[in-house]
């Protein structure tokens, strides 16, 4: 499938069909504006979207790193806490020896020392390989308690070290135990192959260690055991975290696992999971993503502001440029239209002119026959005047009179054909030296009958100092005929039309044609030389006469202006250069 841009542009930006419809320029403006704005806004939205995406991603990375760092720290603290206890127990064993520790006094001494070092130690006990608490020191009565069937005892017997879950146990207080196994030196007795030394620690110390990490209001941090039971106080969970069991068991040592979860169907939160070494515990953090925090909102708000400002700027520029562009198109289009009409009009006139010329030429031949035949009749009358009878003389006189009127009529026909040819329109301006007065008189000669019929008085003023002028006679006559014809339409029967011709200076002449008709409204004066502008009744005027006159005068290097108002009549003034450089013709 090929991408045919022209087709798509035509389909969605229908400039051609718009131009030819009424009210098209306004619609074209709307189309272009919508098109450009749509494209710009789409691109801006893409930028906005990508920026937001990038920002959210960046903030997520940032949050993740922060969470990882804090979890790592907390884990280290927890491990350090456990390790110090284990080291102390090992140190005790090496200093006192196993047998000495069985002695209650020694054990008490040890507990005091441990409590001095770490305040959170609750009690201490020695259990033999049969699982019986042989020696105990602490606030409770535990001596003789049996642990053989307890899970922790089994594990410590196998692994050597055991850190228990948090449990209530006999004491009904949350606590957890750390136990290490030590082999007895020398020969082994039954039930006395090894000893376990166990200390119990207040579980609230764990909470204290975890509290260092909690950052925000909605965040949570706690420990769960290997089967997902919450070990330290949590804001969100109590007891078993069944839904997270699979996640908890999937955590590998030393690897932080981050998940996005909806906690209790609320907002999405980041859940971090990390195993604590030597224990069955998993550290869990629940953190609010930073996308919702202030900085992200601020950044997005700024981005939105930039977006709105950009859209406004694009909107303004687009509207202004479209206005200019469409105006250009309109002007070019109108000019083309005007030129087309002028061409059409002039070719029509040229055709009519050619036709008129042909008719005029052809009519001359029959006119010649009429003229010569009538002439011959006159000749006969002349010859026979002396020889005819007196009775016949009046008839002869009538003959002569009639043939003379035929000859005269032919003469008039000849004048008409001559004038007709003089008005054959030429497309190019052809300059010649002419007498303005004669040229105007010729035009008036053409209109004499109409003047008489309409009873219009024509006043002519020719300045005696008027020199000859270099111009196109035919075109000038066309302009003057046009203006006088308009004046005919404007004046009532019995009106007055005044034609004055005078030189303005050494270079220009002024022809003014004034009438005392109904005048032209000021708003009409503004448009009077525009093509197709007419104030005449429908079908009476084409609205082209004055527009063509205007372009002709302009072509001849002159100007045409009008001075008029309602009820005051109108005065058309044509200023023409007296000497036109005939270089154009000479070149041709």
């Amino acid at each position, binding site marked *: 499938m090929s991408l045919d841009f022209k087709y798509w542009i035509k389909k969605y930006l229908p400039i051609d069909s718009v131009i030819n419809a009424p009210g098209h320029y306004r619609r074209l403006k709307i189309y272009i504006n919508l098109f450009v704005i749509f494209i710009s806004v789409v691109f801006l939205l893409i930028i906005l979207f990508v920026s937001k995406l990038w920002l959210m991603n960046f903030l997520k990375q940032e949050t993740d790193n922060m969470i990882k760092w804090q979890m790592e720290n907390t884990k280290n603290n927890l491990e350090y806490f456990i390790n110090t206890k284990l080291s102390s127990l090992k140190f005790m064993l090496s200093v006192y020896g196993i047998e000495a520790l069985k002695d209650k006094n020694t054990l008490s001494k040890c507990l005091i020392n441990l409590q001095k070092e770490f305040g959170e130690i609750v009690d201490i006990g020695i259990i033999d390989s049969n699982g019986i608490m042989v020696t105990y020191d602490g606030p409770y009565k535990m001596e003789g308690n049996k642990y053989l069937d307890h899970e922790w005892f089994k594990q410590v017997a196998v692994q050597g070290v055991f850190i228990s879950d948090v449990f209530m146990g006999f004491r009904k207080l949350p606590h957890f135990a750390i136990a290490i196994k030590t082999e007895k030196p020398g020969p082994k007795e039954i039930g006395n192959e090894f000893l376990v030394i166990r200390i119990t620690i207040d579980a609230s110390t764990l909470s204290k260690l975890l509290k260092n990490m909690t950052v925000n209001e909605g965040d949570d941090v706690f420990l769960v055991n290997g089967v997902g039971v919450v070990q330290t106080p949590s804001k969100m969970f109590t007891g078993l975290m069944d839904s997270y069991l699979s996640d908890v068991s999937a955590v590998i040592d030393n690897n932080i696992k981050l998940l996005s979860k909806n906690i209790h169907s609320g907002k999405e939160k980041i859940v971090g999971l990390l195993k604590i070494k030597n224990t069955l515990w998993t550290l869990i953090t629940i953190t609010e993503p930073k996308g919702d925090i202030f900085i992200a909102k601020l950044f997005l708000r700024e981005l939105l502001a930039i977006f709105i400002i950009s859209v406004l700027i694009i909107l303004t520029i687009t509207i202004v440029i479209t206005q200019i562009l469409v105006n250009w198109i309109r002007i070019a289009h109108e000019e083309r239209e005007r030129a087309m009409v002028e061409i059409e009009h002039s070719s029509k006139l040229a055709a009519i002119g050619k036709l008129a*010329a042909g008719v*005029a*030429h*052809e009519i*001359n*031949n029959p*006119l*010649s*026959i*009429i*003229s*010569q*035949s009538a*002439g*011959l009749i006159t*000749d006969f009358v*002349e*010859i026979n005047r002396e020889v005819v009878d007196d009775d016949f003389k009046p008839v002869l006189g009538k003959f002569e009179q009639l043939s003379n009127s035929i000859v005269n009529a*032919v*003469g008039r026909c*000849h004048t008409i*054909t*001559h004038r007709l*040819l003089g008005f054959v329109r030429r497309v190019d301006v052809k300059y010649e030296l002419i007498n303005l007065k004669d040229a105007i008189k010729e035009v008036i000669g053409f209109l004499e009958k109409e003047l008489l019929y309409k009873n219009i008085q024509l006043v002519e003023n020719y300045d005696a100092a008027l020199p000859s002028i270099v111009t196109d006679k035919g075109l000038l006559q066309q302009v003057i005929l046009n203006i006088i014809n308009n004046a005919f339409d404007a004046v009532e029967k019995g009106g007055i039309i005044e034609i004055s011709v005078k030189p303005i200076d050494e270079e220009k002449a002024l022809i003014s044609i004034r009438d005392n008709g109904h005048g032209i409204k000021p708003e009409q004066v503004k448009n009077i030389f525009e093509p197709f502008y007419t104030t005449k009744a429908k079908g009476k005027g084409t609205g082209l006469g004055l527009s063509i006159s205007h372009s002709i005068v302009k072509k001849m290097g002159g100007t045409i202006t009008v001075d008029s108002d309602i009820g005051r009549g109108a005065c058309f003034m044509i200023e023409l250069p007296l000497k036109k450089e005939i270089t154009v013709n000479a070149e041709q």
Partner: protein
Amino acid sequence: MLNNKTEEQIRVLLVDDEESFGSVLVERLRLRGYEADYVYSAVGAIESVKNTPYDVILLDLKMPGLDGISVFEKIKAINPAIEIIIISGRLDVDNVNKEVIDSAFDYLVKPLNINEVIHKITHAYKKRYHS
């Protein structure tokens, strides 16, 4: 009489394809004392010039058959002394071959005024014999 007959008989040949025009004009010329003949074709014109020593020829340039310009040139070839006055129905005589116009004595535009015709013939005759 229409005017005094000239002492010398001026021989005029009218060449025009429009018979009703030519026959009338030639009669009017005869009435005025000219030894005038009329032919309506190019071939006839050339024959007549060969046979008769005309003084002046009135020649219509627009004719069927041979065009007026060829007739003009042929006549001048046969008898260069003959003065030719061109008559034409067209008003734009300027558009006709300029050389023809220059070598013709003058031209007249239809419809003709008889006095003007007489005037031109007289002048052409005078030019031929007195210049």
